[in-house]
């Protein structure tokens, strides 16, 4: 296949970023110090102009010199203006694919496409900063095509020698890509989301910024004083103002939430899960089901009150900062629906019912642990002795802190549950925030059992799992019975041989690769 360049829109995008980043320097040198003849200002201007010219030249040249080529099983990228760099990224290393359409690209009908690999460092992902939608689809198809071929090859190999359960599935004609849409929010979901995300609180910093900006030009403060006394002068006016503010805040919250969660779509086909969201800036993510290492279900106190929960996929590929929370399935689902959704999307992971509770000894150990934070805070309070109006004296504060600490420990004890069954492991914990973690044995890359001196006295232990993610996802469950910890260790170490084979089968290409 031929070498291609990014869409020229790439240049526009880079220029836009350049302008955005250098605007402050420009304003400083040419506007604020516009009249200045000082040597450093004049020199600064020339340096600025030189730097900008070089940057623009660099943007154009690096666009010109960056080419990519899609092979049947990899993508080749050449880049670098003077020193050339060649990268070869095999498709099999691609973990997740995500697209992001910022407003600038949207104007040109373009999109950015990122292929995430499991690697570390700067080569962790392959980014196509600006390609047409058709080209993005072509790249994704190349990925899919490779996968289909691989399955086909796997079929001929396994068809010949293996008669296992999985084989029959592969024998069937290759699945057409049928995407099932699992979830799109309705209006009431968006309303609930905007209420729950407390987006309207975001209005306060926005107003504060606007206020301080205006304040620079007009002396609001003196005017505001008159305004304030006008407000407080009459209860009716004050009431109306508060009501207006509340309406504005709620409207703002709904709009903000709508922009983020309004067009949400969770869909999947046999191999991948697709999440798309965003009204103005569109973001989408596709994850291979096999790459989902674990699922985490989080319930904040408020969500618990309303019976909502957020399910999040723990995956291998890393995300850029602002994409981090896209791996979450819609954060404002009914808990039951969230659990169902996990089941629908990931046939590999099962949500177990009837988890075990901690033994009484677990509670004892928790209560006996030294309350470091409370003690240190008490010592600090003792010396500092805060003296504010409405704040009670330090002994009362310290007592409240201790009560809170122990209450949380009790809640945590009450909430904690675990289940280790078949290939699944499942933990739930948390005092006010409640988190459930689900994974499979093959996805756990390390297991740990530990027992402190105190735990030994009461016959309880701590177990822990590590899953691949970036950074690694570590889960720990404290104070479960010693026997359960032993069971956990056996569960992990005494895999039956067929289970290991099943693990291998999950990636037929792996054996294929080593045979060829």
């Amino acid at each position: 296949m031929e070498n291609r360049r990014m869409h020229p829109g790439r240049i526009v995008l880079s220029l836009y970023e350049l302008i955005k980043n250098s605007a402050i320097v420009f304003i400083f040198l040419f506007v604020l110090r516009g009249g200045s003849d000082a040597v450093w200002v004049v020199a600064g201007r020339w340096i600025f102009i030189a730097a900008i010219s070089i940057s623009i030249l660099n943007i154009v040249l690096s666009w010109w010199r960056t080419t990519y080529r899609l092979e049947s099983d990899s993508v080749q990228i050449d880049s670098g203006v003077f020193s050339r760099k060649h990268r070869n990224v095999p498709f099999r290393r691609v973990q997740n694919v995500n697209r992001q359409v910022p407003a600038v690209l949207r104007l040109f009908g373009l999109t950015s496409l990122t292929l995430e690999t499991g690697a570390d460092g700067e080569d962790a992902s392959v980014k196509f900063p600006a390609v047409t939608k058709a080209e993005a689809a072509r790249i994704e198809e190349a990925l899919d095509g490779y996968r289909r071929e691989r399955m086909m090859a796997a079929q001929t190999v396994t068809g010949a020698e293996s008669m296992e359960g999985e084989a029959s599935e592969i024998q069937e004609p290759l699945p057409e890509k049928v995407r099932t849409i699992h979830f799109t929010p309705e209006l009431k979901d968006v309303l609930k989301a905007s209420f729950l995300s407390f987006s309207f609180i975001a209005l306060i910093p926005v107003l504060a910024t606007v206020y301080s900006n205006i304040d620079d030009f007009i002396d609001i403060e003196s005017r505001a004083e008159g305004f304030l006394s006008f407000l407080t002068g009459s209860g009716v006016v004050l009431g109306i103002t508060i009501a207006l503010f509340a309406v504005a805040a709620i409207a703002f919250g709904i709009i903000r939430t709508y922009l983020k969660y309004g067009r949400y779509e969770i869909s999947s086909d046999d191999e991948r899960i697709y999440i798309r969201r965003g009204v103005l800036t569109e973001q989408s993510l596709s994850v291979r089901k096999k790459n989902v290492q674990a699922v985490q279900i989080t319930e904040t106190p408020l969500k618990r009150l309303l019976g909502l929960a957020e399910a999040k996929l723990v995956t291998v590929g890393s995300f850029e900062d602002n994409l981090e929370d896209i791996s979450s399935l819609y954060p404002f689902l009914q808990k039951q629906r969230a659990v169902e959704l996990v089941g629908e999307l990931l046939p590999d992971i099962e949500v177990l019912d009837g988890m075990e509770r901690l033994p009484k000894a677990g509670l004892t150990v928790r209560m006996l642990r030294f309350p470091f934070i409370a003690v240190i805070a008490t010592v600090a309070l003792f010396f500092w002795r805060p003296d504010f109006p409405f704040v009670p004296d330090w002994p009362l504060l310290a007592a409240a802190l201790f009560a809170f600490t122990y209450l949380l420990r009790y809640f945590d004890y009450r909430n904690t549950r675990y289940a280790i069954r078949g290939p699944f492991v499942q933990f739930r914990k948390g005092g006010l925030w409640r988190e459930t973690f689900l994974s499979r044995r093959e996805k756990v890359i390390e297991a740990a059992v530990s027992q402190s001196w105190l735990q030994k006295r009461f016959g309880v232990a701590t177990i822990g799992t590590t899953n691949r993610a970036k950074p690694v996802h570590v889960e720990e469950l404290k104070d479960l019975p010693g026997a359960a910890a032993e069971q956990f260790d056996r569960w992990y170490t005494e895999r039956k041989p067929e289970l290991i084979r099943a693990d291998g089968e999950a990636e037929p290409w792996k054996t294929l690769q080593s045979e060829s």
Partner: protein
Amino acid sequence: MEVDIREPEGRISKKAVTVWRLSNSIRHGIMLLVFAGLIIAGNRFGWWDWAMTVLWILGGLTILSAVYSIFIEPVILQRTWRYGADEEFVKLRHGVITVQHQTVPMTKVQYVGLEQGPLLRKFGLYTLTVGTMGSNHSIPALPEQEAKEFRNRISRLARIREEDE
């Protein structure tokens, strides 16, 4: 009641006790020197009283920690360290107050390496590091022969692969 988990057999070198004693003495010596310097400077320049109190407390804690980590900890740590590898897992067990059992499947091992700092070199010992996709684990103070054998054994069993998924 102690958790009953099959323990691996391998033990680390007895010389580890001496190595740890030396390294902990050096570390605590430096910390004590720093605190002593700060306290002298504080007296000289009349720092706040509370800052001096904090310095004295930290200095005292350092002395306690020195006694523990020079005279007590190395012996117990050396005695309780166990490591081993069977066909499927690398297993580690260690810890003085909290006993840790770690299990790493061979299939997830990404690399094994040997390291040797100046102190370890003096005693002919190596630290062996087993790295997985997410973290790494060290077995401290193995004699050269054992360290190399264990490294070769793991790299043979793990058949460190080109492919990751």
